[in-house]
């Protein structure tokens, strides 16, 4: 389906054609040039592969059969006729191409194209190559005289997903090898998500279970079009080929960042999240972990910031072994909250308050086996661990909350402190010792919010979640409207320094109209 946007050039005046433009929702002519102002013609970047030739459609020099991502423009025949072969077209800007009758007539800003003489409507197709590409489509007769009319062309910016958007597809790797199985977690998710849950073959992707880390999901949207984007990290571990496997008509894939640079853990997309909508940012703000010289690839940061709509900010994750924002923070929907969401954050003092109130003789078999704490008392009595955690709370977590307060005016009422403590991974940094509850999957399905959190196994009997005091405490803190599912991620994820959120990714339903709702921010940035 082609965009119905129409560029209509009407001749008025005497010396030159009375250049004018009309398109869906607006018009511009020499007497009213403001009608073609930014954002003007809105086009999704043509980064998918409609003809399945293994290349992005925008990279081809011939039209891709089936391509439906260009915006159609028509120069009416009466304008063409009056121009008598003296009209020409060019593009003032980068990353915009123009097609006519199956031929590429303008490939870049160095080219102009003389409109052929005739009486018929002239159908043009405009495509863009980048998110938030900006240019003017210029029709002119004599530029020296200023006889021209301009229509702004704007590529849709990438809008990365946040947790308040409904989940359409959730991906998780399914691994069932003996001693390394997440079958129970996958089945628990499938019971709720049904066909929305897509499993990834473990062998094909070399058991790289960290599905959060390789792709980042988002969308490009125009008034009549949606294109999903799978952003491909330069991380490039076992899942390197996974983003490309999702590449199909209507789904684009591209890499941001310098793939020649040696990636660090900060380049993984568990270290990139988006806040829910806040004042001035109707699509939320992106945030990632960095400090000083440590953080995501500089080129990636520039490309992310260039999208403007979700103006990124940074918090400090360099104290963590893995170093990702999803390890100690997560946003969840809550209709009772002032802005409809709350920030979950790990809190070690809340954890110790709970631990100190429990029977010290209560057995913790999983903690005994894997961390050397066979009872609650053993964990409580580890003064070095306690000192380490209190230090993390005061020196790292609380200052990070201040960063959220500064960036999105987060209030204390919007913060939910979730009990958790960290272990110290020598030579690396902190990692969740109690499975990190905040590291969870949020899936709004048919209007119901489901939270899939790691089972803390803070009990003697693995099978008796009802007897787990930590689960009871956590549930009492989470939004009452959410259905909470505690799933077993211990072997495959927790012992590998990750949790549920690290192991999933989600395609979510876009919303809103950035060309209206975020226009102030975009125009200000211009």
């Amino acid at each position: 389906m082609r965009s119905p946007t129409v560029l209509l050039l009407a001749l008025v005046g005497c010396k030159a054609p009375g250049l004018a433009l009309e398109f869906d929702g607006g018009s511009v002519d020499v007497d009213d040039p403001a009608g073609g102002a930014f954002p003007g013609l809105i086009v999704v970047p043509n980064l998918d592969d409609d003809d399945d030739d293994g290349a992005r459609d925008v990279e081809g020099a011939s039209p891709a059969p089936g391509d439906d991502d260009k915006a159609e423009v028509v120069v009416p025949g009466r304008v063409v006729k009056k121009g008598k072969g003296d009209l020409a077209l060019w593009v003032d800007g980068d990353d915009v191409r123009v097609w006519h009758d199956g031929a590429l007539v303008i490939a870049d800003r160095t080219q102009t194209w003389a409109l052929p003489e005739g009486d018929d409507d002239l159908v043009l197709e405009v495509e863009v190559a980048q998110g938030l590409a900006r240019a003017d489509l210029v029709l002119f007769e004599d530029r020296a005289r200023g006889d021209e009319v301009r229509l702004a062309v704007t590529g849709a910016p990438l809008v990365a997903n946040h947790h308040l958007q409904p989940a359409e597809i959730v991906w998780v790797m399914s691994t069932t090898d003996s001693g390394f199985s997440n079958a129970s977690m996958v089945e628990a998710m499938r019971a709720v998500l049904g066909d929305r849950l897509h499993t990834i073959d473990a062998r094909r992707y070399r058991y790289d279970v960290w599905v959060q880390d390789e792709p980042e999901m988002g969308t490009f949207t125009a008034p009549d079009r949606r294109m999903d984007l799978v952003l491909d990290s330069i991380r490039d571990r076992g899942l390197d080929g996974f983003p490309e496997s999702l590449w199909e008509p209507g789904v684009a894939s591209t890499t941001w960042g310098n793939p020649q640079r040696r990636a660090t853990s900060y380049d993984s997309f568990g270290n990139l999240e988006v806040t829910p909508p806040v004042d001035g940012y109707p699509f939320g703000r992106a945030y990632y972990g960095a400090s000083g010289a440590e953080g995501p690839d500089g080129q990636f940061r520039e490309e992310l910031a260039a999208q403007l709509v979700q103006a990124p900010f940074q918090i400090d994750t360099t104290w963590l072994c893995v170093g990702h924002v999803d390890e100690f923070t997560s946003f969840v929907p809550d209709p009772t909250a002032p802005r409809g969401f709350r920030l979950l954050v790990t809190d070690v003092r809340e954890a110790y308050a709970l631990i100190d109130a429990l029977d010290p003789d209560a057995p913790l078999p999983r903690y005994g086996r894997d961390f050397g704490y066979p009872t609650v008392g053993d964990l409580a009595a580890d003064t070095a661990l306690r000192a380490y955690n209190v230090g993390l709370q005061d020196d790292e977590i609380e200052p990070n909350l201040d960063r959220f307060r500064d960036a999105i005016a987060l209030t204390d009422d919007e913060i939910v402190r979730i009990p958790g403590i960290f272990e110290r991974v020598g030579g690396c940094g902190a990692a969740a010792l109690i499975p990190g509850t905040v590291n969870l999957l949020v899936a709004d399905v048919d209007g119901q919010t489901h939270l899939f959190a790691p089972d803390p196994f803070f009990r003697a009997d693995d099978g008796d979640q009802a007897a787990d005091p930590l689960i009871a405490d956590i549930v009492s803190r989470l939004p009452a409207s959410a259905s909470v599912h505690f799933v077993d991620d211990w072997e495959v994820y927790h012992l590998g320094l990750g949790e549920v959120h690290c192991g999933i990714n989600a395609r979510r339903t876009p919303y809103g109209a950035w060309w209206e709702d975020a226009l102030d921010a975009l125009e200000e940035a211009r």
Partner: protein
Amino acid sequence: MIALLLALAAWGADLDTTLAAAWKADPALGRAVVTAEPRTTRAPGILRFVDEATADPDAAPFLAARLREGGDPPEVRRALAERLGRVDPSGGAWLVERLVDPDPVVRAALVAALVYAEAEHAEAGLAIAAKDPDPLVRREAAVTRSVRE
């Protein structure tokens, strides 16, 4: 310094004795530890032992011996150091002995593992680590000292 060197020599001799006894007592465990392979994690380059054999408190001499032998790559030696510190807090001498490891991440893990070591061993190790040429090791030493206190 001389006292420290003498102490290290004595601790090394202790390890030889303890290791010989351990092999005699449980050769199957020894073989399991020597051949155990750590798992990859979400953190690039960070491996961890999560198997039952290396979690056995009696595995400490075998872990220490494997660490001392030095035949594993740095990522594995880091994981061995971490596991050793976790399964046997009394094995501090073995950790200190390996502070000569050429890889700073391994040395940092050894220093972090000293958090539960007996005071004699921890103090000796932290004194060495405080003068380490690598800032990561010195930083781990500072953290270890602060949380021990």
